[in-house]
């Protein structure tokens, strides 16, 4: 990838990387940091990365940076808090909040890896092989994690009062 290609492609890819980071549970600041560091990494090794592989590289690097940040910040506590919050909703279903909020809550119970897989599959339309390459997983692993993520998310939605008709 040349510097010119980098310059023209990044504005298109940066938002996707940002969405992935946010979807994985990063705050706006954390997500921007992760994307920025991934961009810097891509810039540094742009000559060895083909243009068609650039977006995958960027998404993968963003994901790794964010997960690294999470490890530092012990985000598990945030996940636990989110889970507790969700459990509270499970005990006392509240049908006032909309589906999007319910989706966010159900997503909060998933691991960062599962969220990344869902984002790359549903939003980016990546193949299982591409997701595996981005997240350093085998195709079988991607499929199993995706299956579990969807099942878990649907269970959460159900427990929040969202039935099959919603």
């Amino acid at each position, binding site marked *: 990838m040349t510097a010119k290609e*980098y*310059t023209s492609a*990044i*504005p298109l890819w*940066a*938002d996707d*990387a*940002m*969405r992935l980071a*946010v*979807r994985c549970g990063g705050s706006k*600041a*954390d*997500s*921007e*940091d992760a*994307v*920025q*560091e991934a*961009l*810097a990494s891509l*810039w*540094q090794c742009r000559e060895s990365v083909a243009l068609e592989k650039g977006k995958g590289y960027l998404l993968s690097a963003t994901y*790794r*940076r964010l997960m*690294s*940040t999470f*490890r*530092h*910040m012990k985000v598990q506590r945030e996940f636990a808090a989110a889970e507790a919050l969700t459990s509270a909703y499970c005990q006392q279903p509240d049908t006032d909040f909309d*589906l999007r909020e319910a*989706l966010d809550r159900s997503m909060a119970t998933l691991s960062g890896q599962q969220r990344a897989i*869902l*984002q790359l599959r*549903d*939003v980016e339309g990546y193949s299982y092989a591409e997701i595996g390459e981005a997240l350093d997983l085998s195709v*079988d692993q991607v*499929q*199993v994690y*995706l*299956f*579990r993520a*969807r*099942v878990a*998310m*649907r*269970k959460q*939605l*159900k427990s929040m009062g969202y039935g*099959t008709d919603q």
Partner: protein
Amino acid sequence: MEPINDSNYELWLLRYADDGLTADERKRVEQWLDAHPEAVEELALYREAPRLERDESVHYTAATQPNTRPLWGKTWRWTAAAAVALLLLTPLALRLLGGNDAEPMQVAQATPPAETPRVASAISTTQHDAIIADAAHRVSTDSKSSPSVGTRRAAAAADSPVFPVADELLVNETLADVPTDTLLMADAVPTVGPKPDVSTADSAVILIDNEAIAEATRHVPTDVPADDSMDQVTTVEPILIEEDTLDYLEQRLLALADGTREGLQGSYLGRRLARRLPENQELLAQVDEARERTPRGIRMVTDLVVKLIEVNSKENNQQNSITL
């Protein structure tokens, strides 16, 4: 593909739901499902799960490209002129700085190539007068205190953006980029804010232990948790600070803000400084928080470094009070 069983049924079910199986395989799955009603429920949940949609409200707004604009001008002519001017002025400045032979002002030391000191890379011709005037002031200030240590003007630094903006600095500039015999003059770096008021320097002199600061920036701490970003840090070339002014430290830290791994290294310095002040637990926590937010947090760390040194100096009221 292995026969369907309790350990791989999820894989089979996903492929079944995604129409990724042959007719024969689909039949095998359906037969297995007949004997496993709980799996039928899981399959239903999988199919009912909503698909995520692109969130168009999320945008990346920070910089998308590292700034590689040269520190000292946009053209090679400018840089060359600055380099020539520096070479011509170095002996004069050295004489001014080291006017008292018994107590020479510290300058970059000749070191082996592997430990080439990092210094301001060049000085533009328009800054000559300011450098010389400031050097004279330094000599004057130092003569009032221990001549073996440097000085800084903390009061001015606290209120005005005296640092160069990050995009004025070379990304990934390395120590080796800098000539070993170059005079280190922190104040030679162009500023975006008002120049610190030299007249206030006497009331805000803070003395820094040069060797301690150099030591702090020479080694990466060993208690760094292992992960991707930290791995990068371990490969950073040592940064040697031969000058002992805090001005230089501040500018150095801000220069690091553009490079993640070096920014992290700068943040370690902030933490080390904070550790020296156990009574400032809140500040220590802020440094920790800033470390997690590299590179953005590096600016916060920089401010804290300045603040910590100021606090430390006032509380201890002694020279060389920062020991890392």
